[in-house]
Protein backbone atom coordinates (compact mmCIF):
# COMPACT_ATOMS: atom_id res chain seq x y z
CA UNK A 1 0.00 0.00 0.00
CA UNK A 2 1.24 3.43 -0.86
CA UNK A 3 -0.49 6.50 0.46
CA UNK A 4 1.84 9.14 -1.05
CA UNK A 5 -0.38 9.41 -4.11
CA UNK A 6 -2.93 11.27 -2.02
CA UNK A 7 -0.49 14.13 -1.48
CA UNK A 8 0.22 14.43 -5.15
CA UNK A 9 -3.42 14.17 -6.20
CA UNK A 10 -4.80 16.09 -3.22
CA UNK A 11 -5.87 19.28 -5.00
CA UNK A 12 -7.55 17.33 -7.79
CA UNK A 13 -9.48 15.21 -5.31
CA UNK A 14 -10.47 18.30 -3.37
CA UNK A 15 -11.87 19.89 -6.50
CA UNK A 16 -13.76 16.70 -7.19
CA UNK A 17 -15.19 16.75 -3.69
CA UNK A 18 -16.33 20.34 -4.17
CA UNK A 19 -18.17 19.30 -7.30
CA UNK A 20 -19.75 16.33 -5.51
CA UNK A 21 -21.12 18.68 -2.86
CA UNK A 22 -22.31 21.14 -5.51
CA UNK A 23 -24.12 18.44 -7.48
CA UNK A 24 -25.66 17.07 -4.32
CA UNK A 25 -26.87 20.46 -3.03
CA UNK A 26 -28.29 21.60 -6.37
CA UNK A 27 -29.82 18.20 -7.10
CA UNK A 28 -31.46 18.08 -3.67
CA UNK A 29 -32.78 21.63 -3.68
CA UNK A 30 -34.08 21.53 -7.26
CA UNK A 31 -35.43 18.00 -6.83
CA UNK A 32 -37.24 19.03 -3.66
CA UNK A 33 -38.72 22.08 -5.40
CA UNK A 34 -39.88 20.02 -8.38
CA UNK A 35 -41.26 17.37 -6.03
CA UNK A 36 -43.24 20.01 -4.16
CA UNK A 37 -44.67 21.34 -7.41
CA UNK A 38 -45.66 17.82 -8.49
CA UNK A 39 -47.31 17.13 -5.13
CA UNK A 40 -49.29 20.38 -5.34
CA UNK A 41 -50.32 19.66 -8.94
CA UNK A 42 -51.50 16.22 -7.89
CA UNK A 43 -53.53 17.77 -5.13
CA UNK A 44 -55.16 20.61 -7.04
CA UNK A 45 -55.04 19.86 -10.79
CA UNK A 46 -57.84 17.96 -12.57
CA UNK A 47 -57.67 14.17 -12.65
CA UNK A 48 -55.99 13.58 -16.06
CA UNK A 49 -53.10 15.89 -15.12
CA UNK A 50 -52.74 13.94 -11.88
CA UNK A 51 -52.53 10.70 -13.87
CA UNK A 52 -49.74 12.10 -16.02
CA UNK A 53 -47.84 13.06 -12.87
CA UNK A 54 -48.41 9.58 -11.43
CA UNK A 55 -47.06 8.02 -14.64
CA UNK A 56 -43.99 10.26 -14.40
CA UNK A 57 -43.45 9.15 -10.79
CA UNK A 58 -43.77 5.45 -11.71
CA UNK A 59 -41.42 5.76 -14.70
CA UNK A 60 -38.65 7.52 -12.77
CA UNK A 61 -38.97 5.24 -9.75
CA UNK A 62 -39.07 2.10 -11.88
CA UNK A 63 -35.90 2.71 -13.88
CA UNK A 64 -32.25 2.85 -12.76
CA UNK A 65 -30.65 6.26 -12.32
CA UNK A 66 -27.80 5.20 -14.61
CA UNK A 67 -30.18 4.46 -17.50
CA UNK A 68 -31.95 7.80 -16.95
CA UNK A 69 -28.60 9.54 -17.18
CA UNK A 70 -27.78 7.69 -20.40
CA UNK A 71 -31.09 8.70 -21.96
CA UNK A 72 -30.52 12.30 -20.94
CA UNK A 73 -26.82 12.63 -21.80
CA UNK A 74 -26.37 10.36 -24.81
CA UNK A 75 -29.95 10.34 -26.08
CA UNK A 76 -30.70 14.02 -25.46
CA UNK A 77 -28.70 15.40 -28.41
CA UNK A 78 -30.88 13.37 -30.83
CA UNK A 79 -33.88 15.50 -29.88
CA UNK A 80 -31.85 18.70 -29.66
CA UNK A 81 -31.12 18.62 -25.92
CA UNK A 82 -27.37 19.16 -25.96
CA UNK A 83 -26.03 19.38 -22.42
CA UNK A 84 -22.53 19.26 -20.96
CA UNK A 85 -21.84 16.50 -18.47
CA UNK A 86 -22.24 18.69 -15.38
CA UNK A 87 -25.61 20.31 -16.23
CA UNK A 88 -26.85 16.95 -17.50
CA UNK A 89 -25.81 15.39 -14.21
CA UNK A 90 -27.52 18.03 -12.10
CA UNK A 91 -30.66 17.88 -14.23
CA UNK A 92 -30.54 14.07 -13.96
CA UNK A 93 -30.28 14.21 -10.16
CA UNK A 94 -33.16 16.69 -10.04
CA UNK A 95 -35.42 14.54 -12.20
CA UNK A 96 -34.39 11.39 -10.32
CA UNK A 97 -35.08 12.85 -6.89
CA UNK A 98 -38.32 14.69 -7.71
CA UNK A 99 -40.77 11.74 -7.60
CA UNK A 100 -39.41 10.54 -4.26
CA UNK A 101 -39.73 14.04 -2.85
CA UNK A 102 -43.20 14.36 -4.42
CA UNK A 103 -44.36 11.20 -2.65
CA UNK A 104 -42.95 12.47 0.66
CA UNK A 105 -44.83 15.76 0.28
CA UNK A 106 -48.00 14.01 -0.85
CA UNK A 107 -48.20 11.80 2.20
CA UNK A 108 -47.28 14.74 4.43
CA UNK A 109 -50.15 16.79 2.97
CA UNK A 110 -52.51 13.90 3.54
CA UNK A 111 -51.45 13.82 7.18
CA UNK A 112 -52.60 17.42 7.72
CA UNK A 113 -55.87 17.13 9.69
CA UNK A 114 -58.74 17.85 7.36
CA UNK A 115 -60.55 19.84 10.04
CA UNK A 116 -57.85 22.51 9.95
CA UNK A 117 -58.32 23.03 6.24
CA UNK A 118 -62.11 23.12 6.56
CA UNK A 119 -61.82 25.59 9.41
CA UNK A 120 -59.58 27.79 7.26
CA UNK A 121 -62.14 27.68 4.43
CA UNK A 122 -64.91 28.50 6.88
CA UNK A 123 -63.17 31.69 7.99
CA UNK A 124 -62.76 32.65 4.34
CA UNK A 125 -59.12 31.89 3.56
CA UNK A 126 -58.31 31.50 -0.13
CA UNK A 127 -56.79 28.21 -1.35
CA UNK A 128 -53.42 29.94 -1.89
CA UNK A 129 -53.39 31.20 1.68
CA UNK A 130 -54.36 27.76 2.97
CA UNK A 131 -51.39 26.24 1.13
CA UNK A 132 -49.02 28.91 2.44
CA UNK A 133 -50.24 29.18 6.02
CA UNK A 134 -51.50 25.67 6.80
CA UNK A 135 -50.64 22.92 4.30
CA UNK A 136 -46.95 23.80 3.93
CA UNK A 137 -45.94 24.53 7.55
CA UNK A 138 -47.97 21.71 9.09
CA UNK A 139 -47.06 19.27 6.32
CA UNK A 140 -43.39 20.15 6.51
CA UNK A 141 -43.17 19.07 10.15
CA UNK A 142 -44.23 15.52 9.31
CA UNK A 143 -42.28 15.46 6.02
CA UNK A 144 -38.98 16.58 7.49
CA UNK A 145 -37.50 13.25 8.69
CA UNK A 146 -38.21 11.63 5.31
CA UNK A 147 -36.85 14.66 3.42
CA UNK A 148 -33.60 14.56 5.39
CA UNK A 149 -33.38 10.82 4.88
CA UNK A 150 -33.79 11.00 1.13
CA UNK A 151 -31.34 13.89 0.84
CA UNK A 152 -28.75 11.64 2.49
CA UNK A 153 -29.53 8.87 0.01
CA UNK A 154 -28.91 11.37 -2.81
CA UNK A 155 -25.31 11.99 -1.62
CA UNK A 156 -24.56 8.42 -2.51
CA UNK A 157 -26.23 8.67 -5.92
CA UNK A 158 -23.87 11.48 -6.97
CA UNK A 159 -21.04 8.98 -7.60
CA UNK A 160 -23.04 7.56 -10.53
CA UNK A 161 -22.51 10.90 -12.29
CA UNK A 162 -18.86 9.86 -12.74
CA UNK A 163 -20.03 7.36 -15.37
CA UNK A 164 -21.22 10.18 -17.64
CA UNK A 165 -17.83 11.91 -16.98
CA UNK A 166 -18.90 14.57 -14.48
CA UNK A 167 -15.50 15.26 -12.85
CA UNK A 168 -16.70 14.79 -9.26
CA UNK A 169 -14.90 12.92 -6.51
CA UNK A 170 -15.45 9.41 -7.84
CA UNK A 171 -14.32 10.43 -11.32
CA UNK A 172 -11.14 12.03 -9.97
CA UNK A 173 -10.46 8.99 -7.81
CA UNK A 174 -10.82 6.71 -10.83
CA UNK A 175 -8.49 8.94 -12.81
CA UNK A 176 -5.95 8.85 -10.03
CA UNK A 177 -6.12 5.07 -9.77
CA UNK A 178 -5.72 4.50 -13.51
CA UNK A 179 -2.74 6.84 -13.61
CA UNK A 180 -1.00 5.29 -10.61
CA UNK A 181 -2.39 1.73 -10.73
CA UNK A 182 -3.32 2.08 -7.06
CA UNK A 183 -6.86 0.81 -7.46
CA UNK A 184 -7.26 -0.69 -4.01
CA UNK A 185 -5.94 2.28 -2.01
CA UNK A 186 -7.98 4.73 -4.05
CA UNK A 187 -11.24 2.84 -3.69
CA UNK A 188 -10.67 2.03 -0.03
CA UNK A 189 -9.99 5.68 0.75
CA UNK A 190 -13.05 6.70 -1.23
CA UNK A 191 -15.22 4.21 0.65
CA UNK A 192 -13.98 5.39 4.07
CA UNK A 193 -14.38 9.00 3.01
CA UNK A 194 -18.00 8.47 1.94
CA UNK A 195 -18.74 6.56 5.10
CA UNK A 196 -17.52 9.48 7.21
CA UNK A 197 -19.35 11.98 4.98
CA UNK A 198 -22.70 10.17 5.15
CA UNK A 199 -22.40 9.67 8.92
CA UNK A 200 -21.59 13.36 9.41
CA UNK A 201 -24.39 14.53 7.16
CA UNK A 202 -26.93 12.28 8.86
CA UNK A 203 -25.89 13.50 12.29
CA UNK A 204 -26.04 17.11 11.17
CA UNK A 205 -29.32 16.42 9.36
CA UNK A 206 -30.98 15.04 12.49
CA UNK A 207 -29.96 18.13 14.44
CA UNK A 208 -31.20 20.46 11.72
CA UNK A 209 -34.43 18.47 11.58
CA UNK A 210 -35.03 19.06 15.31
CA UNK A 211 -34.29 22.79 14.99
CA UNK A 212 -36.64 23.29 12.05
CA UNK A 213 -39.38 21.19 13.63
CA UNK A 214 -39.16 23.26 16.81
CA UNK A 215 -39.31 26.47 14.79
CA UNK A 216 -42.27 25.34 12.69
CA UNK A 217 -44.26 24.15 15.70
CA UNK A 218 -43.63 27.48 17.40
CA UNK A 219 -44.86 29.37 14.32
CA UNK A 220 -48.06 27.43 13.79
Amino acid at each position, binding site marked *: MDWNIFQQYGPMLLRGFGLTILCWLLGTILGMALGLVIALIQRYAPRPVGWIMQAYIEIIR*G*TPFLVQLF*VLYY*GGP*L*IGLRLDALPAGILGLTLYGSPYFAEIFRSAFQAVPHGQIEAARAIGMTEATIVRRILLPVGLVSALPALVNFSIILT*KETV*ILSIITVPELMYQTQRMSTETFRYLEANLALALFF*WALVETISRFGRRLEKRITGYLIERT
Partner: protein
Amino acid sequence: MFSFQTFLDSFGPLFWAARYTLLISVLGIALGLVIGTLICAAALSRQIWLRRFAGLWVSFLRGVPLLVQLLLFYYLLPVIGIDVPAMVAAVVTVGICASAYISEIWRGAINALPKGQAEAATAIGMGPRDIWIRIILPQAVRLSLPALINELILLVKVSSLVSVVGILELTRASQAQAATTFRPLEVYLAAACIYLLINLFLAALGRYLEHRMAV
Protein backbone atom coordinates in the same frame (compact mmCIF):
# COMPACT_ATOMS: atom_id res chain seq x y z
CA MET B 1 -35.54 12.15 -35.38
CA PHE B 2 -36.84 9.42 -33.15
CA SER B 3 -36.75 6.14 -35.03
CA PHE B 4 -39.53 3.92 -33.80
CA GLN B 5 -38.16 0.95 -35.76
CA THR B 6 -34.79 1.04 -33.94
CA PHE B 7 -36.66 1.38 -30.65
CA LEU B 8 -38.66 -1.79 -31.37
CA ASP B 9 -35.68 -3.68 -32.79
CA SER B 10 -33.70 -3.05 -29.62
CA PHE B 11 -36.08 -5.09 -27.48
CA GLY B 12 -34.97 -8.50 -28.77
CA PRO B 13 -31.29 -8.42 -27.77
CA LEU B 14 -32.01 -6.39 -24.64
CA PHE B 15 -34.58 -8.86 -23.34
CA TRP B 16 -31.93 -11.52 -23.73
CA ALA B 17 -29.46 -9.49 -21.65
CA ALA B 18 -32.13 -8.79 -19.03
CA ARG B 19 -31.69 -12.43 -17.94
CA TYR B 20 -28.48 -11.40 -16.24
CA THR B 21 -30.13 -8.42 -14.61
CA LEU B 22 -32.71 -10.78 -13.12
CA LEU B 23 -30.10 -13.37 -12.21
CA ILE B 24 -27.94 -10.84 -10.36
CA SER B 25 -30.91 -9.35 -8.52
CA VAL B 26 -32.40 -12.69 -7.49
CA LEU B 27 -29.08 -14.25 -6.43
CA GLY B 28 -28.18 -10.96 -4.76
CA ILE B 29 -31.34 -10.92 -2.67
CA ALA B 30 -30.93 -14.64 -1.82
CA LEU B 31 -27.40 -14.04 -0.56
CA GLY B 32 -28.56 -10.85 1.12
CA LEU B 33 -31.26 -12.79 2.96
CA VAL B 34 -28.73 -15.29 4.30
CA ILE B 35 -26.14 -12.71 5.41
CA GLY B 36 -28.83 -10.25 6.50
CA THR B 37 -30.41 -12.85 8.78
CA LEU B 38 -27.04 -13.54 10.40
CA ILE B 39 -26.36 -9.83 10.83
CA CYS B 40 -29.82 -9.32 12.30
CA ALA B 41 -29.18 -12.19 14.74
CA ALA B 42 -25.92 -10.47 15.71
CA ALA B 43 -27.72 -7.14 16.15
CA LEU B 44 -30.26 -8.76 18.50
CA SER B 45 -27.69 -10.82 20.38
CA ARG B 46 -26.76 -10.32 24.03
CA GLN B 47 -23.04 -10.18 23.19
CA ILE B 48 -22.04 -6.56 22.99
CA TRP B 49 -19.23 -7.09 20.46
CA LEU B 50 -21.61 -8.92 18.14
CA ARG B 51 -24.01 -6.00 18.34
CA ARG B 52 -21.14 -3.59 17.67
CA PHE B 53 -20.05 -5.61 14.66
CA ALA B 54 -23.58 -5.63 13.24
CA GLY B 55 -23.86 -1.88 13.80
CA LEU B 56 -20.59 -1.26 12.00
CA TRP B 57 -21.55 -3.58 9.12
CA VAL B 58 -24.88 -1.85 8.55
CA SER B 59 -23.48 1.65 8.93
CA PHE B 60 -20.60 1.03 6.51
CA LEU B 61 -22.70 -0.62 3.81
CA ARG B 62 -25.42 1.99 4.03
CA GLY B 63 -22.93 4.86 4.11
CA VAL B 64 -20.84 3.88 1.09
CA PRO B 65 -22.25 4.22 -2.44
CA LEU B 66 -22.73 0.84 -4.12
CA LEU B 67 -20.58 1.84 -7.08
CA VAL B 68 -17.67 2.44 -4.68
CA GLN B 69 -18.34 -0.86 -2.88
CA LEU B 70 -18.44 -2.66 -6.18
CA LEU B 71 -15.06 -1.35 -7.31
CA LEU B 72 -13.60 -1.81 -3.82
CA PHE B 73 -14.54 -5.50 -3.66
CA TYR B 74 -13.59 -5.98 -7.28
CA TYR B 75 -10.03 -4.83 -6.57
CA LEU B 76 -9.85 -6.12 -3.01
CA LEU B 77 -10.68 -9.78 -3.71
CA PRO B 78 -7.60 -10.54 -5.88
CA VAL B 79 -5.33 -8.82 -3.34
CA ILE B 80 -6.50 -11.08 -0.51
CA GLY B 81 -6.05 -14.08 -2.80
CA ILE B 82 -9.62 -14.75 -3.90
CA ASP B 83 -9.76 -15.03 -7.65
CA VAL B 84 -13.36 -15.22 -8.85
CA PRO B 85 -15.11 -14.37 -12.10
CA ALA B 86 -16.52 -10.84 -12.34
CA MET B 87 -20.05 -12.23 -12.24
CA VAL B 88 -19.47 -13.89 -8.85
CA ALA B 89 -17.84 -10.75 -7.46
CA ALA B 90 -20.84 -8.72 -8.64
CA VAL B 91 -23.40 -11.03 -7.06
CA VAL B 92 -21.42 -11.14 -3.79
CA THR B 93 -21.16 -7.34 -3.66
CA VAL B 94 -24.84 -6.83 -4.41
CA GLY B 95 -25.69 -9.49 -1.82
CA ILE B 96 -23.47 -7.96 0.86
CA CYS B 97 -24.90 -4.53 0.17
CA ALA B 98 -28.47 -5.87 0.36
CA SER B 99 -27.68 -7.71 3.61
CA ALA B 100 -27.37 -4.41 5.50
CA TYR B 101 -30.82 -3.27 4.39
CA ILE B 102 -32.39 -6.70 4.86
CA SER B 103 -31.02 -7.01 8.39
CA GLU B 104 -32.66 -3.68 9.22
CA ILE B 105 -35.93 -4.85 7.65
CA TRP B 106 -35.89 -8.02 9.79
CA ARG B 107 -35.00 -6.08 12.90
CA GLY B 108 -37.83 -3.63 12.31
CA ALA B 109 -40.32 -6.46 11.77
CA ILE B 110 -39.19 -8.37 14.87
CA ASN B 111 -39.28 -5.25 17.01
CA ALA B 112 -42.77 -4.49 15.75
CA LEU B 113 -44.14 -7.70 17.27
CA PRO B 114 -45.75 -7.21 20.67
CA LYS B 115 -43.34 -8.30 23.45
CA GLY B 116 -46.26 -9.92 25.28
CA GLN B 117 -46.43 -12.76 22.74
CA ALA B 118 -42.94 -14.03 23.51
CA GLU B 119 -43.60 -13.60 27.23
CA ALA B 120 -46.87 -15.51 26.97
CA ALA B 121 -45.09 -18.29 25.09
CA THR B 122 -42.42 -18.48 27.78
CA ALA B 123 -45.16 -18.56 30.42
CA ILE B 124 -46.80 -21.62 28.85
CA GLY B 125 -43.40 -23.32 28.81
CA MET B 126 -42.12 -22.90 25.24
CA GLY B 127 -38.35 -22.92 24.77
CA PRO B 128 -36.56 -20.06 23.01
CA ARG B 129 -36.16 -22.12 19.83
CA ASP B 130 -39.88 -22.87 19.63
CA ILE B 131 -40.70 -19.26 20.29
CA TRP B 132 -38.51 -18.17 17.38
CA ILE B 133 -39.68 -20.80 14.92
CA ARG B 134 -43.37 -20.88 15.76
CA ILE B 135 -44.17 -17.39 16.93
CA ILE B 136 -41.68 -14.70 15.99
CA LEU B 137 -40.38 -15.74 12.56
CA PRO B 138 -43.70 -16.54 10.83
CA GLN B 139 -45.11 -13.17 11.81
CA ALA B 140 -41.90 -11.30 11.05
CA VAL B 141 -41.78 -12.81 7.56
CA ARG B 142 -45.31 -11.66 6.85
CA LEU B 143 -44.67 -8.18 8.21
CA SER B 144 -41.46 -7.71 6.24
CA LEU B 145 -42.69 -9.08 2.91
CA PRO B 146 -43.63 -5.73 1.33
CA ALA B 147 -40.28 -4.26 2.37
CA LEU B 148 -38.43 -7.26 0.93
CA ILE B 149 -40.18 -6.92 -2.44
CA ASN B 150 -39.22 -3.25 -2.37
CA GLU B 151 -35.64 -4.27 -1.76
CA LEU B 152 -35.79 -6.62 -4.75
CA ILE B 153 -37.05 -3.75 -6.93
CA LEU B 154 -34.16 -1.64 -5.65
CA LEU B 155 -31.71 -4.42 -6.51
CA VAL B 156 -33.00 -4.67 -10.08
CA LYS B 157 -32.18 -0.98 -10.47
CA VAL B 158 -28.90 -1.25 -8.58
CA SER B 159 -27.79 -4.14 -10.80
CA SER B 160 -27.37 -1.62 -13.63
CA LEU B 161 -24.19 -0.51 -11.85
CA VAL B 162 -22.43 -3.84 -12.34
CA SER B 163 -22.20 -2.88 -16.02
CA VAL B 164 -19.20 -0.83 -14.86
CA VAL B 165 -17.17 -3.96 -14.10
CA GLY B 166 -17.97 -5.36 -17.52
CA ILE B 167 -20.86 -7.75 -16.98
CA LEU B 168 -23.12 -7.94 -19.99
CA GLU B 169 -26.44 -7.28 -18.26
CA LEU B 170 -29.21 -5.04 -19.51
CA THR B 171 -27.39 -1.70 -19.14
CA ARG B 172 -24.09 -2.93 -20.58
CA ALA B 173 -25.91 -4.58 -23.47
CA SER B 174 -27.70 -1.33 -24.25
CA GLN B 175 -24.38 0.51 -24.24
CA ALA B 176 -23.07 -1.96 -26.82
CA GLN B 177 -26.29 -1.72 -28.82
CA ALA B 178 -26.20 2.08 -28.73
CA ALA B 179 -22.60 2.05 -29.93
CA THR B 180 -23.36 -0.17 -32.92
CA THR B 181 -26.61 1.49 -34.02
CA PHE B 182 -25.63 5.11 -33.19
CA ARG B 183 -29.14 5.52 -31.78
CA PRO B 184 -28.58 5.93 -28.00
CA LEU B 185 -31.95 7.57 -27.35
CA GLU B 186 -34.04 4.73 -28.77
CA VAL B 187 -31.87 1.99 -27.26
CA TYR B 188 -31.71 3.48 -23.75
CA LEU B 189 -35.44 4.18 -23.82
CA ALA B 190 -36.02 0.54 -24.72
CA ALA B 191 -33.79 -0.49 -21.80
CA ALA B 192 -35.74 1.84 -19.51
CA CYS B 193 -38.99 0.20 -20.69
CA ILE B 194 -37.66 -3.27 -19.83
CA TYR B 195 -36.56 -2.16 -16.35
CA LEU B 196 -39.96 -0.56 -15.88
CA LEU B 197 -41.77 -3.74 -16.97
CA ILE B 198 -39.74 -5.87 -14.55
CA ASN B 199 -40.35 -3.50 -11.66
CA LEU B 200 -44.05 -2.98 -12.35
CA PHE B 201 -44.40 -6.76 -12.39
CA LEU B 202 -42.54 -7.06 -9.09
CA ALA B 203 -44.63 -4.30 -7.54
CA ALA B 204 -47.82 -6.09 -8.62
CA LEU B 205 -46.46 -9.34 -7.19
CA GLY B 206 -45.72 -7.54 -3.94
CA ARG B 207 -49.28 -6.21 -3.71
CA TYR B 208 -50.67 -9.69 -4.45
CA LEU B 209 -48.52 -11.38 -1.78
CA GLU B 210 -49.31 -8.68 0.75
CA HIS B 211 -53.01 -9.20 0.06
CA ARG B 212 -52.68 -13.02 0.26
CA MET B 213 -50.79 -12.97 3.52
CA ALA B 214 -52.87 -10.32 5.24
CA VAL B 215 -54.79 -11.54 8.27
